[in-house]
């Protein structure tokens, strides 16, 4: 009775509050659309500058590379091209040296190490093209027959990688803040004292909040998946029911973490900083937007046991790699363990009443 009434009231309040609506739904949506617009359409074009030195190889080079889709050529003087490179308009500038019989032709390649992805891609492509030209000219038969099968062909595009991460991140932020912030505010305003005087049990009161947040987590996941499928061709391979179970466990884990934060924060003002200190590093380390394989080993080991890491990994395996629940038992188990730890901590920290100063009155901040 009280349980249902509380769930209803909580859901009503969340849906009537514009700022919580924004954070729950508009924010992850915005995230998906922006990331999709930036990264969703592949690498874009590679701009290669070719210094006009009059070398005979320039034409070979140009015709070999022009067969590759998405490559733009700019020819000109070296100084001008290097300026363009520095301005970020070109990814690689190639300059062929003079060719003399019996000698190697010197090719100078300029690139911008700051342009990590496009720069190194362009560099590798230019090197590969030069090798190819050499092989053709020297008539060396190719040793390998390469059949390219990009992961993208299987549907694991960048957006496919990103989508479970965005769900994990959104559920984390919503459940963490959505639990901690109202609870501390209710305590500070004295609403919790009023509730303490009713017959409702602490566990019932808090469980109702958890159910409310879980409903919101499901809505978030639903919206994000729909956007991913409709706008960015993400292919959902796993079972939605299995994914729902992962989201349920993830939401409960984050609600429990939110309860810990609410027990730690004495005032509403401190909720933001405490929750952000927990959530921000976790968002980046948990492989939400990109794998952290290039991080130092110790950092990777630390990141591997973060609650959000398990959540993201389990969701990614199930949702876009088509794994069965039986294949993600270990991250699910870890999430359950984290949830238990958080619940135990929260039970220890939970307070109905705001901190009092010496004469037993609520502190000034708590009064109004």
């Amino acid at each position, binding site marked *: *009775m*009280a349980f*249902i*009434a*509380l769930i209803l*009231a909580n859901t*009503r*309040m969340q849906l*009537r*509050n514009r700022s919580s609506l924004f954070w729950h739904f508009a924010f992850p949506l915005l995230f998906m659309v922006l990331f999709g617009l930036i990264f969703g359409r592949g690498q874009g074009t590679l701009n290669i500058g070719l210094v006009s030195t009059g070398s005979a190889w320039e034409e070979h080079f140009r015709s070999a590379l022009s067969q590759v889709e998405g490559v733009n050529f700019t020819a000109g003087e070296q100084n001008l091209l290097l300026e363009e490179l520095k301005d970020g308009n070109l990814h690689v500038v190639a300059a062929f040296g003079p060719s003399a019989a019996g000698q190697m032709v010197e090719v100078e390649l300029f690139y911008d190490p700051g342009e990590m992805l496009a720069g190194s891609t362009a560099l590798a492509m230019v090197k590969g093209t030069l090798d190819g030209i050499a092989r053709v000219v020297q008539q060396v038969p190719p040793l390998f027959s390469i059949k390219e099968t990009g992961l993208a062909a299987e549907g694991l595009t960048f957006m496919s990688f990103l989508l479970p991460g965005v769900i994990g991140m959104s559920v984390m932020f919503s459940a963490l803040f959505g639990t901690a912030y109202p609870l501390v505010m*209710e305590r500070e*305003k*004295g*609403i919790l*004292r*009023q*509730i*303490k*005087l*009713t*017959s*409702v049990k602490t566990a019932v*009161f808090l469980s109702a909040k958890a159910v409310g947040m879980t409903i919101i987590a499901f809505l978030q996941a639903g919206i994000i998946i729909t956007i991913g499928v409709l706008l960015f061709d993400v292919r959902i391979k796993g079972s939605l029911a299995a994914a729902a179970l992962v989201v349920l466990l993830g939401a409960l884990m984050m609600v429990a973490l939110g309860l810990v934060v609410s027990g730690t924060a004495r005032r509403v003002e401190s909720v933001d900083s405490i929750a952000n200190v927990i959530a921000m590093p976790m968002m980046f380390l948990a492989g939400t937007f990109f794998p952290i394989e290039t991080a130092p080993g110790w950092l990777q080991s630390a990141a591997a046991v973060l609650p959000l890491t398990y959540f993201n990994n389990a969701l990614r395996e199930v949702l876009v790699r088509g794994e069965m629940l039986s294949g993600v038992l270990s991250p699910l188990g870890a999430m359950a363990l984290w949830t238990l730890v958080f619940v135990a901590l929260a039970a220890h920290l939970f307070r109905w*009443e705001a901190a009092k100063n*010496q*004469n*037993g*009155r609520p502190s000034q901040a708590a*009064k*109004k």
Partner: protein
Amino acid sequence: MARRANKEIGDLICATKEGVQGLSIMVEVQSLSKGYGALLAVDDVSFAVKQGEIFGFLGPNGAGKTTCLEMMEGLRKPDSGKVLIKNIPVWPEPGKIKKIIGVQFQSSAFYEELTVQEILQLFAAMHGGKLALPELDALLEMGGLSEKRRAYTGTLSGGQKQRLALMTALVNKPEVIFLDEPTTGLDPQARRRSWDVIKELQTSGKTIILTSHYMEEAEYLCDRVAIIDYGKIVALDEPKKLIDKLGEKTKISFTSSRPLDGALALLPGAEVVKARSGEGQVLLAQDQGQAIAALLEAARKEGVTIKNLQVSVPNLEDVFLALTGKELRD
């Protein structure tokens, strides 16, 4: 002064106990004490409240009213002493009295995204019941909130919020209602309205315990008041009897350009209860004519100007002033 008050209070409590014998006692407090560090916020307080009575705690801020109330409500554990509500001990298991008490806190806040009727229904559900529509209507009617039933609580005025808090305290149909400063911060009209509601509750048989620092509120509402200062009850009786205890005295108040302390102490037939010049000075006189003449004479001799000279019948405020040497609102 304090010593005299303490002696008096001993007599008063005895008298009260005799007075309530044979009637059904709803709330009984025995030797209740609570300290915060070195400060004794409630110091050995005892009293009893009859069923259907409106009982008031009067005292300045920090006198221990709220702490006392919270121990009776089961929110704050006493260091020593006992509270019995309907013969059920509140401590050590305050959960047992949840069903028979209703509480309105000093400052009331609500979930702002819920409407008035949603709040009442939610609280009824948390008490383990359900508010039937006629009951809801009756509550809204009593609180003067019928037209606001679909308004978000964030849009209510101060008086409406206070009345909603009171209605929230009633959803579990309590027998004893605690009101902590029910009208503080309200304009006179809203205060009147709250008083009407509280009187109506009494008519319906509820026992009401409230705190206040408004004298007129206590005089109008309370059947008996306990005057509390520094955690101790310094007087306890019906408001009228407390005033009568001041004797057939008349209250003379005035402001003067300079303090008249020395001269005042020598005035025949008048007792100084407050002598600070800036805030007005107060005398309680047996013979007003004699006292005023002597006062004016003293002022003339000292070359002091007397202003705002007022003669009035003493009220509860003056009882408080006489007992504690302080005004209720500082």
